[in-house]
C-alpha cells in the first residue's frame, strides 16, 4: 500500500481534479480506478478529508451506544470491557457510506470469568479479492467500578495486493467517577506497524451518565494529521431503554451529523441496527445479531 503512495504526483492530482474532489479523496478514488486494493485507502482518505469521526470503529463495528460498553465488539474495537461477564458472540455487518462494495462483515466472540474479559474476532471488508481481512483480540479486567483492556488487530490485504500486513495495538479503560457517572478513554492505535490502518483513530475521552432508562454520553477525540486547523472531534448522544428495546441517538461534529440506532433483546438473543448519516459521504448502516451463551444476565 505504501508503495502506491509513491507513484507520480501528477497522476494523483489529475484524478482528484477530474473528479472534483479534495486531493486526499482523489488518491483513494485513483487507486480504485487502477483496480488495486483501494478499500483501505477509501477509509483513510475519507478520514483525512472529513475528520476522524467518519467511523469511530472499523473492523468490529457493531451497532450499539458507545456507552456503556456491552458486548464483545466494543471490547475488540475499543478496548472497553463490560461490567458483566458472559460468553457471547456477535455477527456484525456494516455497509459504509452507502457503497455496496464497501461492506465489513465481522464475527466476534467474547467471554468473561470473574474479573477477566477476553474477546476475539475475524472480519472481512470489501470484496474478497481486493479488500482486507482482520483478526482482532482483546483481553482485560473489569468489575463494577473500573475496567481496562488491551486490544489489537492484525490486518492482511487481499492476496491480489501482495499481502501487505499491518497491525495496531491499543487500550481502553473506564472508571466510575461518581454514582451513575463514568469516564472512559480509548486509544485503539497506540502502536501501529506495517501497512497503515484504514482509518486513523485518535485518543478519545468520554463521560457517561446513566439512569434506569436513560443514558447520556459525550466524548472528545484528539487526532493528529487532520486537514486545516482541526485537531479534535466531539460527539454526544442519548439512549432510551424500555424493557428489551433500546433506541439511541448520536451527534458528531466536523461535519455536523447524526445517527439513530435501535436494538431488541429476546431471551439470550439481541438484534440491533444503526444508521449514521453524513452530509457528504452518505449513510453508514450497521446490523448485528448476537447471542449470549452464559454468564450473568
Amino acid at each position, binding site marked *: 500500500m505504501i508503495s502506491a503512495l509513491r507513484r507520480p504526483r501528477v497522476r494523483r492530482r489529475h484524478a482528484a481534479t477530474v473528479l472534483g474532489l479534495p486531493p486526499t479523496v482523489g488518491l483513494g478514488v485513483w487507486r480504485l480506478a487502477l483496480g488495486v486494493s483501494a478499500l483501505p485507502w477509501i477509509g483513510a482518505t475519507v478520514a483525512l478529508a472529513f475528520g476522524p469521526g467518519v467511523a469511530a470503529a472499523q473492523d468490529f463495528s457493531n451497532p450499539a451506544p458507545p456507552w456503556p460498553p456491552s458486548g464483545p465488539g466494543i471490547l475488540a474495537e475499543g478496548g472497553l470491557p463490560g461490567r458483566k461477564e458472559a460468553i457471547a458472540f456477535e455477527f456484525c455487518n456494516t455497509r459504509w457510506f452507502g457503497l455496496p462494495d464497501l461492506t465489513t462483515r465481522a464475527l466476534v466472540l467474547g467471554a468473561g470469568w470473574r474479573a477477566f474479559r477476553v474477546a476475539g474476532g475475524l472480519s472481512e471488508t470489501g470484496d474478497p479479492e481486493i479488500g482486507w481481512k482482520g483478526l482482532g483480540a482483546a483481553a482485560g479486567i473489569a468489575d463494577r467500578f473500573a475496567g481496562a483492556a488491551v486490544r489489537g488487530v492484525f490486518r492482511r490485504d487481499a492476496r491480489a495486493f501482495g499481502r501487505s500486513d499491518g497491525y495496531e495495538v491499543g487500550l481502553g479503560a*473506564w472508571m466510575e467517577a461518581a454514582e451513575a457517572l463514568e469516564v472512559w478513554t480509548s486509544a485503539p492505535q497506540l502502536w501501529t506497524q506495517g501497512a497503515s490502518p484504514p482509518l486513523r483513530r*485518535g485518543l478519545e475521552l468520554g463521560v457517561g451518565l446513566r439512569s434506569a432508562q436513560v443514558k447520556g454520553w459525550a466524548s472528545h477525540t*484528539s487526532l493528529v494529521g487532520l486537514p486545516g486547523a482541526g485537531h479534535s472531534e466531539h460527539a454526544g448522544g442519548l439512549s432510551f431503554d424500555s424493557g428489551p428495546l433500546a433506541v439511541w441517538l448520536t451527534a458528531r461534529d466536523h461535519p455536523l451529523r447524526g445517527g439513530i440506532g435501535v436494538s431488541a433483546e429476546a431471551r439470550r438473543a439481541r438484534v440491533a441496527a444503526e444508521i449514521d448519516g453524513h452530509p457528504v459521504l452518505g449513510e453508514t448502516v450497521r446490523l448485528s445479531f448476537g447471542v449470549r451463551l452464559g454468564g450473568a444476565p
Partner: protein
Amino acid sequence: MRPWAIGRHGQPDVFIALLWVAWLGLVASPVSPEPLEPPPESPEGADYAAEPADSLDGGLFELGLGASGRAGGEIQRRRRVRFADDELRGTVREGRGDPLAGGSVEGRSGSGDLTLGRLAPRWGRGLLVGSPADPWQRTPTDRGPRATFRGRAGEGALYRHGDREGVELLAGRFARRDLAGLKLWRSGLALGLLAGTTGEVQGSLSRADSADASEWAWDLSGRWRVEGLAERNVGQWVISVRARGGHQGFRSLAEPLRSGPARALAVGGSGPAPWGRAGAVAALWRFRSGRAGARLALEGQFVGRDRAVVAWGVEEQHGLRREVPSWSAPFRQGAWGEWRRAARPLRLSLRHEMWGERAWARGVTRAVTTVRLEASAPAGIGLAATHSVFHSKRGESLYLPEGEIDRLVLRAVSGEGERSRFEARVPIAGGRISAALELATAAAGRKPSRWSVDFTRRGGKRGSRSATSRNDSDPPPL
C-alpha cells in the same frame, strides 16, 4: 491550594504535591493551569531534567544503574549513589551526557552544616542568591533548603551555622563566576553580601516571619530591587499580596538569568469553595519599557469519594512571560481540566488543556490531551501506559512531563503529534527494575523510539526500614 501555586514552577501546596505525584508517575501530568515549562536558563525547545529533592531515611543507601537510548542511537549509561546517615548524606550521579551528573555531600555536626558540590541556596526572597519567583508564584521550586527539586545554581561549598541567629558562608562558581558570600541573620533580619573575583559586590537586607517576607538587594553601581510578600487570613481564605520594584538593569551575580521582571504586582487568594477548593491570582509585571505582561487565573478542585479528583482552571494572559524574545502569542486564553482516580488495581488519569490566541480560547495555539493508565499486578509488578496527543502552533513551546525513576523530564515537543510511553516495574534481586519505552509520532511520520532501563536497590543498617522491604510488601505506584 494557594493562588501562588498557579504557575509554571508552582510551589508547595497542591500544585507541588501533584508535581511530586507526577514524578512518581501517579498522574499523567500535574495539576497546573498551563503546560509545565523549564526555568529561564534552559534553552527554549530543549528537554529539561529535574531531580527531585527527596532524601533517604537515616542509615540507608541507594544504588542505581541505568541505561537509555533511542533506536539507532548510542546507549547512555548512568550510575548513581545516594546515602544518608545521621551526620552525613549525599548524592552522586555519573553518566556521559547526563544533565544531572554531579553530586553533593552534606555533613552535619554541632558546629554547623557543610555542603560540598552542587548548590542551590536561597537568601530572603531570592533577589541576590537563589531565584526570585515568577510574579504569579510564591517561591521557585528548585532553590532553597525546602525546594521540591534539587537545583543546579552552582558548585562549591556552603557552610551554615545557627538557627534563630547565625551565619552562612558561600564560596563557589555560579553563572560562570567565582563568587563568595556571607550572610548573617538574627531574629528574622538578615544581611547578605556577595562578591566576585573581579570586584563585583552586591548586598541584600531581608526580613521574614511566618506571614510576611521582604528583601532589598543592591549593587555598587546603585541599582537595586526590593520585593515584599504579605499573607493574611480573611475568613477561611488566605489572601496574598506580592510587590516588586527597582532598577531594570539589576542582575544577581549568582543567577543573572533568573532576575525576573523589575516590577511586579500580584494578588491572590485561595480557600474553600462550595465544590471543594478554589484559588485565583492576578499578576502584572514589567521587565523594561515595552516588555510587560499580565495574567489572571482561576482554578478549582473537587475531591470526591474514593479520592477521585476533578481539577479545572481558566486563565488569560497578556504580553511576555520571559524577558527574551519569543514567538508566543502576546494574548492567550486557555482552560484545562483533569480527572483522576484510583480503583485498585487500576489508576486512571485524564487531562485536556487548550490555549487560544483569541477570545474564548479560539485560534488554538496549543492543545494537549493526556491519558495515563496504571495497573498493579501481584508480586509487586506494575504496568503503566501514558498517551498524549498534542497540537501546537509554530513558535509555541510545549513540554510534556515524563516521570522517570530518578527524575522528571520535561520533553520538548512541537507541531502536532502523539507520544506513548509504556512502563513496567518488576521487583528483582532485592531491588527493582524499571523499564520504559517511548513511541512518538509526528504528522510527518514516526520518530525514533526511546527506551530506558534502570535498576535500583536500597539497603541499610539492620533495623532501618529499607526500600528493599517496601518493594516486597507495598510497591509504590509507577
